[in-house]
């Protein structure tokens, strides 16, 4: 199993939450102090460099118009880290393809980062979270269609080496696509895609051999979706399938249980970021059946199950992995068993007011005392030659 360090690069220094309507979409940027912001960018990038030194891999994402995430262009952060790190894989999870204006530009950016990093890029694509349809002005009923059309175009751009091709799709028209540079990795950087409830979409991810990732969801839900992936995996070797399944919890590792819980409490800032219901569920983002429940007041957005519950619930569900190194290892093992296994552990080790020192201590403890056990316990077994179909 591989383990990845992640922070959304939050800007948590906000006015009291009862004085603002939302920390996303509509919060005025007068509350953003660029000097504080500069310090934050330096430290978050430093933490990724430290992750690299500790032997962890790096995950980046992007969001827009939100204080929860000031990485508004993951390719920029990835480009910086492509030069500043030496060993870590760098996973962008992801490029919000449905919200990007030009998939060919995305293909170029990814190819450039892949080449600069000498093939250390993992290129994830996401449809974009509900509230982002406002920032991007993407039609919420079409995000999935745009995601897949964008991916098709991007992958074709990566894998075409004999001169220009044309593309006339539903959302994009291109007359002479011929990217320079082409990716370092062949045939292209590994592709990752996130999902939360749409099984048909997950099966499509599996059929294409892409890595499937789930974030911060209760274990029963995670197992259901991982099972959907496994049922349609193109890999005949189950180990290869497992390698393409990823999960992200909040992770807090500390010397004592009490210290870890205090850290977890700070991490959970992210789950309680104030966002009004109309931003969480724009029309058509989720299927009609969900919105029937919404009309009845029984559904107010995808993330409610984890947003409104306490730490005990989060821990029980595997949304939060938290404790001493030994406890953290055991919780990972338990969750692994509950969901039928997975190959990539994406760790949100920083959020909200978790300080630099706290973050570094937590990730260092994890890297030194948990990761070796994780690597051993969940090592990828090489498939016997010719026995792949077993």
């Amino acid at each position, binding site marked *: 199993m591989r383990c990845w360090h992640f922070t959304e690069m939050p800007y948590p220094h906000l006015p009291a939450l009862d004085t603002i309507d939302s920390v996303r979409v509509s919060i005025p940027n007068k509350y953003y102090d660029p000097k504080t912001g500069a310090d934050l960018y330096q430290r978050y990038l430093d933490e990724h460099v430290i992750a690299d030194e500790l032997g962890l891999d790096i995950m980046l994402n992007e969001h827009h118009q939100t204080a929860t995430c000031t990485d508004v262009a993951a390719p920029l952060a990835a480009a910086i880290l492509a030069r500043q790190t030496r060993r870590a894989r760098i996973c962008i999870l992801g490029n919000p393809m449905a919200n990007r204006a030009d998939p060919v530009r995305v293909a170029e950016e990814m190819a450039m980062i892949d080449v600069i990093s000498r093939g250390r890029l993992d290129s994830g694509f996401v449809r974009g979270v509900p509230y982002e*349809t*406002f920032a991007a002005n993407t*039609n919420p009923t079409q995000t999935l269609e745009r995601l897949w059309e964008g991916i098709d175009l991007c992958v074709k751009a990566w894998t075409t080496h004999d001169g220009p091709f044309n593309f006339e799709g539903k959302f994009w028209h291109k007359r002479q696509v011929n990217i320079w540079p082409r990716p370092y990795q062949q045939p292209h950087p590994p592709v990752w895609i996130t999902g939360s409830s749409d099984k048909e979409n997950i099966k499509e991810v599996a059929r294409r051999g892409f890595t499937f990732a789930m974030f911060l969801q209760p274990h029963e839900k995670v197992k259901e979706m991982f099972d959907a992936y496994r049922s349609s995996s193109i890999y005949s070797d189950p180990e290869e399938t497992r390698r393409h399944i990823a999960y992200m919890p909040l992770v807090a590792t500390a010397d004592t249980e009490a210290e870890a819980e205090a850290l977890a409490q700070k991490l959970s800032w992210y789950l309680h970021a104030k966002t*009004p219901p109309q931003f969480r569920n724009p*029309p058509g983002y989720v299927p009609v059946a969900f919105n029937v429940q919404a009309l009845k007041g029984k559904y107010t957005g995808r993330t409610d199950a984890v947003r409104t519950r306490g730490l005990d619930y989060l821990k029980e569900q595997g949304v939060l992995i938290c404790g001493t190194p030994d406890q953290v290892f055991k919780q990972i093992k338990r969750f692994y068993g509950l969901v039928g296994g997975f190959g990539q552990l994406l760790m949100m080790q920083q959020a909200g007011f978790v300080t630099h020192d706290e973050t570094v201590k937590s990730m260092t403890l994890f890297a030194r005392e948990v990761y070796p056990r994780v690597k051993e316990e969940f090592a990828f077994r090489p498939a016997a030659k010719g026995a792949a179909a077993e």
Partner: protein
Amino acid sequence: MAVAKRRAARVKAFGMKIEVERRGTGKKPLVIFYDEEALTLDSPVLDALARSFQLIIVSPPGFGLSDRPDWIETIDDCAYICLDVLDAIKVRNATVMGFGLGGWLAAEMAVKTTHSFSRLVLVDPFGIKVGGPFDRDIQDIWFLAPDRLLALKYADVEKGRIDYAVMPEKKLEIIARNKETYARFCWQPYMHNPKLKRRLHRIDVPTLVLWGDSDGVITPAYGRAYAREIPGARFATIARAGHFPHIEQPEAFLRAVGGFIGLAKAPARKSTKAKAKSRSTAKSKARVKARTKGNAKTSSRTSVRAMSRKGKRR
């Protein structure tokens, strides 16, 4: 009040099935394109209209029980389909009345052809861009908090509260799908077709544009600008009403529309007597009437310009 019997059917057009409901026992056809929330369907106004007209209520693609193939993305697309529907069921000389989103749809149809229309009533329609790039002509209904939105839509917010919890599942499914379709067609460009304003001069039937004077989603000023683009169109506001004047002030609405559409029992005020003799005479007669009787809100400038153009076209 006797509630008109409802007879629904699905009509084949454009390779899909479109829900068409008929109500009323009258002979004169009145085509209804209901509002984006389909509130019109249960409004007493329709019962009143059904006493004089044969109501033909067309659910656009993705609304009600109508199909919505993926290729349909705009109200412009819907207009072609609904024109085919009217042809398929042989509607001629119809008064066409559209509310909100339905008004936009009716306008999109009318700029293409009015061969089944005798006159047009638009009630608080969306559909055009009036101001500059930085002007928010139409409030962002998907961004606003529910209470704020309610206050913009209604003069009296109590009239706008809806208790979904008591509704049957089947109805909720239609409402949820309607909401999805609404966003699919109207998210971007937001609630308008950038081309429509330039096309409105093609509307060649007498047109009445009605507006709730308290519509905070799209203001009466927008409505006046809309009416100015339609040759000879009359514009009137309805007091103490927001975005759904026919629901908030049904009697005032019927008074405002009665004379124009020839509604029986309506107070005999400003009757155009535009009975469908031959289509062209009825139209030209009504147009002249609209021009001469039109109040200050009527734009004679666009009217004259469009008439000369029309002369060339036909």
